[in-house]
């Protein structure tokens, strides 16, 4: 039971608990905020896994970007005052069943498999350099592709969201 473990369990707890809240909270705002903690917890796990850069990105993109987007979404689609904000749930039973089954299967698989595990050393310095190199050499294609993807996403989002002017 070393410090590493403690930290791990801490983050794990944060992640899972908050995630649980996310999917169960009746108040949408609660779940939105607890999502923040989930992301945070995941970031923590990344750190534990020696992926500092990913962790940072996780915080920046998710917390800074996606979460904000989601909050915007919440705000735009609900009036805080309205009763709407409490959203109901549906088909609980199949959901629980499905989720439980899925989890069971996954855990069975994950636990039951002997993964080829040779622990990699923690990187001496931040992984940013290495990542940057890989990104622009091995994965340059995907890197470019993502560029286009983002462009498409931008255009698409704009198309959908922008007000339809009654032309044509």
């Amino acid at each position: 039971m070393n410090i590493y473990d403690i930290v791990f369990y801490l983050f794990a707890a944060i992640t899972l608990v908050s995630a649980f809240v996310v999917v169960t909270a009746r108040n949408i705002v609660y779940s939105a905020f607890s999502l923040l903690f989930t992301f945070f917890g995941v970031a923590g796990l990344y750190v534990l896994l020696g992926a500092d850069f990913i962790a940072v990105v996780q915080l920046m993109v998710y917390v800074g970007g996606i979460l904000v987007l989601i909050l915007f979404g919440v705000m735009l689609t609900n009036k805080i005052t309205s009763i709407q904000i409490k959203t109901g749930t549906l088909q609980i039973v199949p959901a629980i069943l499905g989720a439980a089954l899925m989890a069971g299967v996954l855990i069975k698989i994950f636990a039951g498999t002997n993964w080829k595990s040779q622990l990699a050393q923690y990187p001496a310095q931040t992984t940013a350099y290495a990542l940057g190199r890989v990104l622009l050499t091995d994965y340059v294609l995907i890197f470019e592709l993502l560029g286009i993807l983002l462009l498409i996403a931008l255009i698409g989002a704009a198309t959908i969201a922008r007000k339809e002017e009654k032309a044509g």
Partner: protein
Amino acid sequence: MEFNTIYNNLFYLVPEIAVSAFLLLVVLADLILGNNKKLLPYLSIAGMIVAGFCVMNQMTFSGAVFSLSGGQAKSFGMVTVDSFGAFFKLLVIVSTVLVILFSFDSEEIKKSTSRQGEYYTLILGMVLGMFLMISATDLILIYLSLELMSLSSYVLAGFTKLRDRNSEAALKYLIYGAVSSGLMLFGISIVYGMTGSTNLYEINALLKSPETNLLPLGFAGILIFAGIGYKISTAPFHFWTPDVYEGAPITVTAFLSVASKAAGFALLVRFIKVTFVSSVAPSGHWMLLPVFPWKELLIVISILTMTLGNFTALWQNNLKRMLAYSSIAHAGYLLLTIAVLSNQGLIAMLVYFGIYAFMNLGAFFIVMIIANKIGSENLEDYKGLGYSMPFLGVTFGMFLVSLIGLPPSAGFIGKLYLFIALVDANMIAVAVIALLNTVVSLYYYIRVLKEMFLSKPTGEPVSLKLSPLSFVMILVMLAPIVIFGVYFTPIVDFAKSCVTILGM
């Protein structure tokens, strides 16, 4: 992996590059030209044609690029260029051009002139995604290109926001797609965990080693299949299809039903072939690695798919929806060609797809024209249309006949090759089931004709002035149906020349 290698590799990516370039061109043109959107479609068509030429040049190529420096020796890279891919790319290009031409006549698209720039951009985006899907041999690339295509299609599905069914389609498509791709991603992660690689060739090499533990692999396989299966809308991952097809603008529906399906199939074939096949017997049969029973899975899935598609279609009154189910059924037939797991099956698939593209697009196109006119896609409103629009009626009839697969239409040839491949693989029972399905399919196709020709027109007879463009287009799409029906050596030979998949 040095810069010059990258540079050399780019040479193999000319089509993709061309598409991206024109994508950007369209965006720029949209911005520069302002309200004059006339140019955009031609621009995108031009792009397609250029890309087409590039693909033609690549017909004889066979190579894989962008290999990981760290990877094993076996690594071929994440993009594979071969004739098989070229075939599907051409298919995509052709259907794209046709769809763009559709859009000229589509009321739905006309309504939103101001956003035509986005429309064509997104289509090109989809095309790019498809291209990469077709030739990707790296799971990550597969995932991302699939996402690229999906994202664009989500938007397109909801492109005309005026009608709520579009928005609904978009939302459903989005959620459903996101979940499936999520599953896929998770599957990929598992594969990665097992093999430490995302490159199909490497994975294949590793799977050959005895100490693969199969359970997670199997699960991963199923998850990935779920991701692809949702793209090609096979049961039980098809649920989005009818709703989205009905909801989306017809042009987009047509596009989804042909192009994205084609890309999906190409992906599936490549995925299975490269990853799970150890070698190809001289007889052309694929030796499956003993890690996962793909054959059985595919057979079950395809039978389920075609049965579900056909039988549910019996009850549809919305033409688009009916065609959606029929396309599900066709996906079932096509899956069988993969289930054969032989080059013969592959030929059958290419032939089938080459024909399917035309007949399906044709059917959708006519539905669209009629919808433009009478503003409805419901069977009830088709009563007696055979008289008020004889040309459309007849041609529609021919397309449907081809979809049924009655001789002497080209559809029959597709079916013929399929069945021969099945019988040749001793899958007689499956063949019989497929045959019965075909018979079932007959009912609902015929029903349409019955309504069009044998029912009294309810309302006042509508008369339709067909624009010369659409007239020509119908003929263009009809020609292969009729010609290949009787003289199909060319398409078959072409398909034969396109079955080489890099690997092994």
